[in-house]
């Protein structure tokens, strides 16, 4: 016979209270006790790196993660300092952020919006991440940006190129360093017109989701403004692997340019199929048929092999740039990992530094203070020349690179060459531009 005072009813009551306490999201308890969500109270601050670790963009996610780790090292005063040495703002001293050691947790977006939101939520609620950053897809970026707005933390977007991220889906807590589809069109169209003429007829194949739609709209608008005609624009399912049945109808039109609004595996396969079907050898009215890939990624270009040779596109950054900031980053990244960084790695590294710098300048991790410090912030030395984080939409405006698949690469990384650096003024647009209309930053949320 037991002498214990425990009763079944008492045990149930205690369990219910304890369960409710555990189940109550820390996001709410934290905000009631602290000034803002996940206010760092100890000697460290936790950042949440939300990247695709599985799924089709896992290699890009792995490169982002490498860059994040490098950024954390540099922020904590380890390594050679990378772009901290070239950054125009000198607020960062290599002693963490506001004197707190930078630590990080990682999440796997799987390049799926629901999985990305779940991993971001977990990093905010369970790990106490004060900022979320990363991603390789616009759908994911928009989803996570919305979550961060609700949760009251800053979201520093990774690789997201859709106009919507800082257009109709912009949020006060979200910031994008990467360029967008409008900028690709504005930078690329004059180069296309100069090289291929102003009387071309374009046929678009477009990935059927937010990024593809905005890119098609942007490239069409920019090229049509310079005299091109759009013969047809066909949406292709994101799940498509063989594009032959979408490419062969091009042969039956009088189009003389094929624009592939595809990214990742879609781009590799559609470009490979287009080359297989002889489009690069095709002549239309005595002129060479041309293929254009508006958004190039070196990591993805590797998959297309020699098919990318001579093909024009745009990119946010390339390791072959020789400015001080790019050289410092390439040296730092290349020495640590043995190969040059991708544009995804570059943008997330910059975003981490920009966030940390904003905290230092604002003197707080409070998202509203950090956001204020980022809004309208002008800087240099991070590899893209003079850049401004526009206050109206939280989009960075900087030079855009027009690149071409290299004809004689010297290594497996040497796939693209920069043919033109388009100045920021040429790719800047009004915040109320129709392609970006319909959104509202709203109020910053500190949780």
């Amino acid at each position, binding site marked *: 016979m037991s002498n214990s005072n425990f009763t079944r009813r008492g045990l149930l009551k205690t369990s219910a209270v304890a369960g409710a306490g555990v189940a109550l999201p820390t996001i709410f308890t934290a905000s009631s006790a602290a000034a803002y969500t996940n206010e760092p109270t100890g000697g460290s601050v936790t950042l949440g790196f939300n990247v695709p670790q599985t799924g089709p963009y896992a290699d890009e996610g792995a490169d982002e993660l490498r860059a994040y780790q490098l950024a954390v090292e540099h922020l904590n005063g380890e390594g050679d300092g990378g772009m901290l040495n070239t950054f125009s703002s000198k607020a960062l001293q290599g002693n963490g952020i506001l004197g707190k050691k930078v630590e990080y947790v990682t999440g796997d977006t799987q390049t799926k919006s629901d999985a990305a939101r779940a991993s971001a939520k977990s990093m905010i609620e369970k790990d106490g991440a004060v900022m979320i950053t990363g991603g390789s897809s616009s759908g994911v970026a928009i989803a996570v940006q919305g979550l961060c707005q609700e949760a009251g933390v800053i979201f520093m977007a990774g690789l997201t190129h859709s106009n919507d991220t800082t257009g109709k889906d912009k949020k006060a807590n979200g910031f994008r360093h990467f360029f967008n589809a409008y900028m690709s069109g504005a930078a690329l169209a004059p180069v296309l017109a100069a090289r291929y003429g102003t009387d071309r007829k374009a046929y678009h194949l477009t990935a059927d989701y937010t990024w593809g739609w905005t890119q098609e709209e942007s490239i069409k608008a920019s090229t049509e403004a310079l005299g091109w005609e759009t013969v047809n624009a066909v949406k292709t399912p994101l799940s498509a692997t063989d594009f032959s049945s979408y490419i062969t*109808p091009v042969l039956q039109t009088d189009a003389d340019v094929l624009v592939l609004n595809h990214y990742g595996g879609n781009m*590799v396969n559609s470009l490979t199929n287009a080359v297989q079907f002889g489009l690069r050898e095709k002549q239309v009215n005595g002129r060479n048929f041309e293929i254009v890939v508006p958004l190039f990624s070196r990591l993805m270009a590797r998959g297309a092999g020699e098919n990318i040779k001579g093909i024009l596109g745009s990119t946010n950054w390339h390791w072959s740039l020789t400015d001080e900031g790019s050289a410092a980053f390439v040296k730092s990244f290349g020495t640590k990992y043995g190969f040059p960084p991708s544009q995804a790695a570059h943008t997330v590294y910059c975003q981490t530094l920009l966030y940390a710098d904003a905290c230092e300048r604002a003197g707080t991790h409070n998202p509203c203070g950090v956001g204020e410090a980022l809004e309208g912030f002008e800087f240099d030395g991070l590899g893209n020349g003079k850049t401004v984080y526009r206050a109206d939409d939280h989009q960075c405006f900087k030079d855009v690179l027009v690149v071409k698949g290299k004809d004689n690469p010297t290594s497996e990384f040497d796939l693209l060459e920069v043919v033109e650096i388009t100045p920021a003024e040429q790719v800047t647009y009004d915040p109320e531009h129709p392609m970006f209309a319909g959104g509202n930053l709203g109020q910053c949320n500190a949780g």
Partner: protein
Amino acid sequence: MDAILLQTLNGLDKGSAYAMIALGLTLIFGTLGVVNFAHGALFMIGAFCAVTMQRLFSISFETLDPTQTDFLGNPLKVKTPYVESWFGPEMGASIIDWSVPLAILFSIPIMLFVGYAMERGLIKHFYKRPHADQILVTFGLAIVMQELIKHYYGANPIPTSAPDAFKGSFDFGTMLGFDPNVIIYPYWRLVYFAFSAIVIGAVFAFLRFTTFGMVVRAGMADRETVGLLGINIDKRFTIMFGIAAAVAGLAGVMYAPINSPNYHMGMDFLVLSFVVVVVGGMGSLPGAVLAGFMLGILESFASMNWIKDIIPGIDQIIIYLVAILILLTRPRGLMGRKGVMED
């Protein structure tokens, strides 16, 4: 007319892949009664045999070229493949160039072994279990295989070229009296179609004209009676599993130059191949081949712009739509036999 011809040609190579995968699926289902959801992964492993062959031939030694620098400003390490060093630059380059066709020889023993190991190591334990268990375990196995490939080869597609002799495309249009550059078809896709015809023909001939094949066919019809005659039918069925794996692998090897292989490519074909098997008729080898080509061509036609203008999204659902129609009118599929999967 030219558009119809072109989409028919497009459907042939897709259909070839569907037919070869569905043939293997049907062989496994017909002999062992197993619904093998890992069959797409076998197709993917075949494609990676081609990638591996290309990488093996490209293994290189490095020499420093002080006249050029790498991205860090150090002297550039120039890679020279050993085969070029051993056999001379021209011969070496030719060997690398022909790595995909040579991978056929490399892949056959590998795929036979993978199939044999799969069947003996895992699938035999599920013969008497419900089909749902078989699907779960083989689907899990497929995920394990694709994650292993992703771990070693990465997530990005890997370019795997056809030999230079088969690069470029053939102008069918001029041959048929159309304008030039209107009906163009890549040489390698023609090779793929011819290759699939040979593989499918070889499998049928093997089953039809060899004693081994005769016993297997008898076993497929009545396993117990063949067993009562003192024939070890299980051993033969295990070998057939290996052969089915080899057929999927060969389909993958030759598909590598059509679309750059990636770890997920097997899943892209798997579901459609199952639809092909069901439409063709469970357990019917000729049905699988017929349905493979038929659905491949239909899928191509559904991608035509004017059809999509009438029914948006038809290219995504056509195969399933046709499958529903066929199963409504012919519940056993095009060439299904009575009694199969009806117990």
